[in-house]
């Protein structure tokens, strides 16, 4: 009896010291709901796969909340090892040279296997500095695509397997759908800033800002107002909103847009490729969903180019010890393995970030079995990204997005023309960007 107690006490002590020997790696993320559960599962699998490191993942709320929490923690010297930051926070993170530990450097310093070329260029291009070094690790990237209601198309006498390719076709189809009573409105959209503005410019190969959309340095400025195609598009959106062809879904992500599509009110809907799972769940039993690439204007030279991504990457923060960073590198390596990536992207609808993960999905027959799941990846890889379609990189961009929403609302309410609205985006946005430049000099 005494012996067993002793032995078990020793075993307990041994297991405790083993647990202590494990290095803890903290990861703050913004994945709630089902995505969060999937993420926890990935972390649990990693923890089981080895016994040196213990990754502790903590949900910190929305993207801005997570980023703010990490920054506040950094100021208080209590920062996590890894933080998930959304794409518009990239400029801020990149400029914080003393706060971040660039991923390429981390991999080199710890001697971890790492091949930047294995990643999809359209994804990592967004997070790479001008010398071609990868600064953060892509985790969940998506790109906007077109969803449409096949039943409404059928009812209006349109070919349900032919999504509109150009904006002219979107308008024609919308008119037919509305006049036949198949739906009340033609289309709606999430993320006016991301989908109808930034991606619009990239898709039409037009610059968003000077100096390669801000990749070239902090003194780059926005030039939305000089993009004639974009000015025309915004003017059209305002006109279509009046005609009822287009319905506005609200600022930021456009919370009111998905219900308009799900309820069958609007026959087409543009939003992130990662919305696919939600679209399928919410339209199940109501109508069949089709997928298409974003529409473009035929008369704009160079369109369609390629779309740009959204979503988030993992940034490694500075100020921890070497042993911990070895674990961070090991974990990031695990995360980007084809098996984990393919599983994560197929579950969530985010893009696979490596060619290997994409190929694995193909060989598993995933894209054949799930029509529409590869539209996003086809869009971002349609052409080799140009200086206009690599992405964008500006400081204070979270607020610039608010300004875009603000000015778009003024346009829709009729108090400004498209040209005035976009010029105001430039002047107000550039004030913020100039402040950022000054603060980070």
């Amino acid at each position, binding site marked *: 009896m005494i012996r067993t107690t002793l032995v078990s006490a020793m075993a307990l002590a041994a297991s405790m010291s083993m647990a202590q020997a494990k290095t803890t790696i903290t990861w703050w993320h913004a994945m709630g709901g089902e995505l969060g559960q999937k993420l926890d599962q990935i972390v649990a699998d990693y923890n089981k796969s080895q016994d040196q490191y213990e990754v502790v993942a903590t949900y910190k709320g929305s993207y*801005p909340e997570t980023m*703010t929490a990490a*920054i506040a923690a*950094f*100021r208080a010297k209590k920062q996590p090892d890894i933080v998930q930051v959304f794409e518009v926070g990239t400029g*801020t993170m990149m*400029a*914080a*040279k*003393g*706060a971040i530990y660039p991923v390429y450097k981390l991999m080199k310093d710890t001697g971890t296997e790492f091949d930047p070329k294995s990643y999809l260029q359209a994804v990592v291009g967004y997070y790479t500095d001008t010398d071609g070094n990868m600064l953060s690790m892509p985790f969940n990237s998506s790109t906007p695509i077109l969803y449409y209601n096949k039943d409404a198309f059928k009812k209006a006498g349109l070919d349900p397997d032919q999504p509109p390719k150009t904006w002219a076709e979107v308008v024609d189809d919308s008119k037919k759908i509305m006049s036949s009573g198949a739906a009340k409105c033609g289309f709606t959209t999430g993320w006016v800033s991301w989908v109808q503005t930034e991606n619009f410019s990239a898709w039409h190969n037009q610059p968003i800002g000077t100096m390669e959309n801000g990749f070239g340095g902090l003194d780059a400025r926005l030039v939305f107002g000089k993009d004639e195609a974009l000015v025309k598009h915004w003017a059209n959106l305002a006109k279509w909103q009046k005609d009822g062809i287009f319905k*506005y*879904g*609200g*600022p*930021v992500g456009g919370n*009111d847009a998905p*219900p*308009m599509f799900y*309820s069958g009110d609007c026959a087409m809907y543009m939003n992130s490729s990662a919305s696919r799972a939600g679209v399928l769940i919410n339209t199940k039993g109501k109508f069949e969903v089709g997928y298409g690439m974003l529409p473009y204007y035929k008369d704009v030279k160079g369109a369609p180019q390629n779309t740009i991504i959204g979503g988030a990457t993992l940034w490694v923060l500075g100020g921890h010890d070497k042993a911990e960073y070895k674990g961070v590198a090991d974990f990031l390596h695990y995360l980007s393995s084809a098996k984990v990536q393919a599983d994560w992207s197929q579950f969530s609808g985010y893009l696979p970030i490596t060619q290997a993960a994409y190929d694995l999905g193909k060989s598993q027959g995933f894209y054949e079995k799930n029509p529409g799941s590869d539209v996003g990846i086809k869009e971002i890889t349609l052409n080799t990204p140009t200086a206009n379609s690599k992405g964008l990189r500006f400081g*204070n961009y*979270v*607020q610039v997005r*608010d300004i875009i*929403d*603000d*000015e778009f*609302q*003024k346009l*829709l*309410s009729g*108090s400004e023309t498209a040209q005035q609205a976009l010029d105001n985006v430039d002047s*107000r946005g550039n004030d*913020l960007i100039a*402040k*950022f430049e*000054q*603060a*980070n*000099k």
Partner: protein
Amino acid sequence: MKRTHFRNKILPYLLIAPQLAITIVFFLWPAGEAVLQSFQQEDAFGLKTSWVGLANYSDLFSDPVYIQSLEVTVVFTIAVTAAALIVALLLALAVDRAVKSGPAYTTLLVWPYAVAPAVVGVLWWFLFNPTIGILPYLLSLVGYHWNHALNGTDAMILVVIASAWPQVSYNFLFFVAGLQSIPASMREAAAIDGAGPVKRFFTITLPLLSPTTFFLTVVNFVYAMFATFPVIHATTKGGPAGSTDILVFKVYNDGFIGLNLGSSAAQSVVLLVIVIALTVIQFRFVERRVQY
């Protein structure tokens, strides 16, 4: 005022020490930091800090968006205060006349005050949601197309209603108490002299209620300016096009979402000055007039 004398000289300081500590840690220290930061420009991580003097302030007052936010705040504050006071007064007058059922109504009318502000916001957001809400549906039957996502006036009406609703309960309680302290004999005397109910209200009830009204006005001003953040956050997030972007919400948005700390700090200092002014008004005028 009664003065208490302590024999021990240290004891009084010890007794107020906990409260002082809280004030210093949670108020003086952060407020001091804010004042300091308002003269600086700093990157989000606090790696590079530079002194910019009054630049943050001059930027603020030359920024049309901030001026708009100031105007929005004034309109919003006055609307919330007026709506909450008038509705509360009408309800209090009604309850004052209902002799038997008064307490029951009082209890029911106080309920909204117990609802958490964020819940209040979500509640009204659902009721007024342009896509799924019941009120826009009813309004569309009479030919009005409600859309607070696009129409600034609609948005302002929404946040004013949502913010005034719980505050009505608070004001109501004070008005009921105030009405009960007005001697019935005065109103009866006026009635005998031939004054109608409207005249009695304006010449007797309202003047005698004025200390309560004045006190409530100040309290409601402070409430509308500072405590309505959750409502705005849960409904309009300051939009559309900044039409409900009140000062408090802008401080949060610029500081915590935009990470523009210098400007956000300067805005908090401006707010601090407004609070100090309101507090002075309250102590100077209200405390003197209200009879406890």
